[in-house]
């Protein structure tokens, strides 16, 4: 149980009478008349509108399957790569993407029992020098941080960073910059709770 009384449910909480129970192991927040729990671990759970970084795991004539670091795969229709309707008998999607490529996309439809439908970002191809994975809960927390912590990490390390809410980070930069990001990722993963993560990072970035 995380709270008792009259609250509005924000996320990951169920209500029974006047009691609020967490449905995951996580960090609870009861503020502003709302109660919510942020998961500390586990796979990424897609939500419509999320910006994710995925990896192509299969290329078929009509669509590509994408690993989005979740319990479920994503897929992108072949038309999206050409920005127009294509005839799969005349075009081969593997001329655009191959297995192992990284891309930036948004979740646009979730249906029970089916893969998650994704739409490509304007500049969808993701390239860099190193890829890192952090807990999706921590990625979401950092991306939504009001103090714009990602920009501070970019400024401190001197590297270009693309981060998906699914916990995938792609960095581009010199060896020293990548080394600094490796250290920052280690700090992010070593912090058990979300509370204090931002302060801890600010300490490292000073």
């Amino acid at each position: 149980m995380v709270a008792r009384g009259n609250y509005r449910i924000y996320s990951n909480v169920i209500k029974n009478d006047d009691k609020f129970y967490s449905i995951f192991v996580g960090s609870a927040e009861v503020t502003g008349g709302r109660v919510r729990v942020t998961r500390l671990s586990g796979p990424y759970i897609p939500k419509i509108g999320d910006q994710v970084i995925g990896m192509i795991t299969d290329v078929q004539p009509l669509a590509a399957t994408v690993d989005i670091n979740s319990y479920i795969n994503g897929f992108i229709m072949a038309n999206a790569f050409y920005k127009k309707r294509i005839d799969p008998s005349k075009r081969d999607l593997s001329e655009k993407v191959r297995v192992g490529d990284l891309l930036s996309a948004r979740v646009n439809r979730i249906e029970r029992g089916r893969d998650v439908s994704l739409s490509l970002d304007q500049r969808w191809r993701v390239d860099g020098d190193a890829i890192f994975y952090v807990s999706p809960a921590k990625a979401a927390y950092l991306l939504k941080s009001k103090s714009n912590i990602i920009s501070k990490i970019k400024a401190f390390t001197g590297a270009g960073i693309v981060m998906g809410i699914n916990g995938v980070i792609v960095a581009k930069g010199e060896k020293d910059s990548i080394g600094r990001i490796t250290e920052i990722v280690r700090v992010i993963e070593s912090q058990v709770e979300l509370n204090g993560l931002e302060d801890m990072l600010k300490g490292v970035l000073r």
Partner: protein
Amino acid sequence: MMPKKGPIISNLRKDQILKSISEGKHIDGRELSKQRSLEIVPGIIEKAEGSASVKLGDTHVIAGIKVEVGTPFPDTPSEGILIVNAEIFPTASEYQEPGPPDEDSIELARVVDRGIRESKMVDFSKLVIEPAKQVYVIYVDIGVLGMGGNLFDASSYAAVAALMTSSFNVYRIDGDIPVKTDEKMAMPITDFAVSLTFAKIGGSIVIDPTWEEEGIMDARLTAVYDNDGRICAMQKGGSGGLKIDDVFQMVDLGKAKYLDIRKKIVEMVENAKSGN
């Protein structure tokens, strides 16, 4: 999630691993000739005749020994029987599906079995109750709990440590029926083998590959070293080829390393036996 045989490594991660290896380091920062941290805990399953848990980096394996009585094989009437089974549990990795053992599990069991058998670790002639009629059957069951790469070595160390610390009830023949007694017998161990696995990645030879490294390796070689450093079993894996120089480089590296692992296994087993 779509069932996958193994990890698909992104092209970026592949480049990152290859770059790291060309600079003389595993992707986790180790030297190419250095194993991950090894932790062996024997005696973790109370009801088994012997057991051990092995953690090799992120790889976690448990092994359990059960001893029963059975009929010997016709070609070895005066020897006990060894049966090794391995199972990779679905919780070990997101790519592992539930169901009967797949070809990877069968290969894993075969390689561990070969290492135990060919090193003459167990004196099977002492596992006979009545020649050609009743012998002890040693079951070694291996369960993979965490798939972090190099299951061969972790499973081999777990099986070896479990066998070395196992003891079982002696059976006596009453008429034609084997009867279990309260008397205990230690597993007749004469020697033991140390397995070391190498991978060829981007032209470099590395020891103890991680799961991601296994995903991009060209070829893999497991060599099992006996007490005197002689190779008593081998297994080659992966679709790529190995040059003769690669094989020599691997086995020479193993020869320089096997004693460290051997000492560690002996130390852990002695500690377990003395109750530390």
